[in-house]
């Protein structure tokens, strides 16, 4: 190990908790949006068309007079859920395959590692475009598509960590005591591999939220009148809308930016805090 130039801090830090606070606040608003005095995101002419921010509509209104704040909060529902489900799917499938590859090695490892390598050989958004173009796009299928993209990165991390832990004394002790593979994987290896995966999960959720937005720009996000951040931003980003009515695109962009920043920062801090390094190859 080389000497670290940067001082490694021993707490997660104030900025981490500010970020987590923002995410919690947003999740709260999104979760209870229907019961809070936020308004209906689909209501046409809730205010006059193309109004700037005002007391009644703090983010203003769009060309159809819909409340941009309501659309941003209800958009958080879809964006956060898509981000969460995508990462969850990647964790379960990628994590499972990665641990299996790292634990059993041999042919299993070669097949799984090659699959990861193949998945990583697509530019992520191009693979997402290919799949979403061919399926019915609802919240679940879009989430799963983005989840497929996270299988390989999560899987590689899980595999690398499993290889390290499989050699450790406590795992060998368990084996000597007669524990079978299932027990060793679930009781000894999984709890240790979970921590670095958690850090990656935070980063991955940010990436998935951004990816949903990118798909929206390609016309491939969730179909129908469901609101997501990506779709709101696309709505407001045609040259004419943007010129006359920048609030429609810029407010959701700002909220999304803060969210991704919070997720990235939190992920980075968790990783540094637990000081996990991807070592074995």
């Amino acid at each position: 190990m080389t000497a670290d130039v940067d001082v490694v801090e021993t707490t997660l830090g104030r900025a981490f908790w500010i970020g987590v606070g923002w995410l919690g606040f947003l999740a709260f608003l999104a979760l209870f949006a229907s019961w809070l005095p936020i308004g209906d995101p689909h209501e046409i002419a809730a205010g006059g068309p193309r109004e700037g921010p005002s007391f009644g509509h703090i983010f203003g209104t769009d060309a159809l007079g819909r409340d941009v704040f309501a659309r941003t909060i209800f958009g958080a529902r879809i964006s956060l859920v898509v981000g969460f489900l995508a990462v969850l799917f990647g964790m379960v499938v990628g994590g499972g395959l990665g641990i299996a590859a790292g634990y059993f090695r041999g042919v299993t490892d070669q097949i799984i590692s090659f699959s990861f390598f193949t998945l990583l050989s697509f530019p992520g958004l191009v693979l997402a475009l290919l799949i979403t173009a061919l399926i019915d796009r609802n919240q679940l299928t879009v989430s799963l598509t983005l989840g497929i993209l996270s299988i390989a990165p999560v899987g590689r991390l899980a595999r690398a960590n499993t290889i390290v832990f499989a050699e450790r004394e406590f795992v060998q002790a368990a084996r000597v005591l007669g524990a079978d593979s299932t027990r060793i994987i679930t009781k000894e290896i999984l709890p240790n591999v979970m921590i670095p995966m958690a850090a990656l999960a935070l980063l991955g959720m940010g990436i998935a939220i951004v990816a949903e937005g990118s798909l929206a720009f390609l016309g491939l996000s969730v179909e129908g009148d469901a609101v997501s951040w990506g779709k709101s931003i696309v709505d407001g980003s045609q040259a004419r809308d943007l010129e006359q009515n920048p609030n429609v695109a810029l407010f959701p962009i700002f909220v999304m930016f803060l969210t991704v920043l919070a997720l990235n920062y939190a992920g980075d801090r968790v990783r540094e805090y637990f000081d996990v390094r991807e070592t074995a190859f």
Partner: protein
Amino acid sequence: MRSLLLRRAALLVAVLLAVTFLAFGAMNTLGDPLFNIVGPLSEIDCDAVARGEAEATSSALDGNRTDCEILAGVRADYRLDEPLLKRYVLWLGDAARGDFGTSFQSEGVPVSEILTDKLPVSIKLMVYAEVLALALAIPLGVYGAYRANRRADRVLSVVSMAALAMPSFALGVVLLYVFGLKMGLFPSSYDSSSVWSELRSLFLPALTLGSGLAAGYQRLLRTDLVTTLQEDFVHMAKAKGMTDRHILFRHALRPSLFSVVTVFGIQTGALIGGSLVVEQIYLIPGVGRELVAAVARDDFPVVLAGVVMIATAFVVINFAVDLLYGWLDPRVRTQ
């Protein structure tokens, strides 16, 4: 070195086969392949027509044949009655010769022609973005390492963190609004009337694409350079009385560029994905925009060819970077 090259080449072939199979397989298993080729025409029940229960129709596509004859022709052309693996092998043979079939919607224009027409603009955009990214990242990375952990370095670190959190489409919209529409410094759409106007109209798109790359490169370069600056040969150069600038750019920069070269290949994926979106925002007539338009009009031969071309290019670039890395750093060769 020789056996390493051979192993790399074998892996390259295997990955290319896997990638093309995945794309081809997705196109043929998700949804109805016949619909993916001919669109709504595929929903005609030709068995019923043959039994005389429904009337034979003909569409504007080909006045001389009935729709069912066209469908039968497509089935034969695309070998839809064969097993998937056999169709893949046959398709791959055609694709390797550059024959991706014809676009169904654009009156039988070869798909490869549609895509190669759009390719130059996309490549210009991506090269432009890389150039801007390196032009920003190298000086700022060197400066960050030079002033490591001082105020300037901390500011740069916050800025690059923010740039990484800003999705390219969001940055694209913001830049378009501020510099394109409000200040009127740049046109809001692509203009290729002269070299100068092309450079000018591609500036904001390239900056949009390049800023995330620049932030990533800057962080890597700074970290590596901080380590290099503690090496003996740097102290030696300092003791000999060389200027800081000379040491930074002539001595320390080159051995600190390994990580940047490594991620260069990986970042190409993000660059390609980003350009799909940026071409939408700035209305640039490149491959990405063609691909999205093809998806919107259910023109799946174009989609499949586009995806395969992009993925192939990405795989080849990554392998080239791998080899370049081995050439730059002799230690890699002996592994």
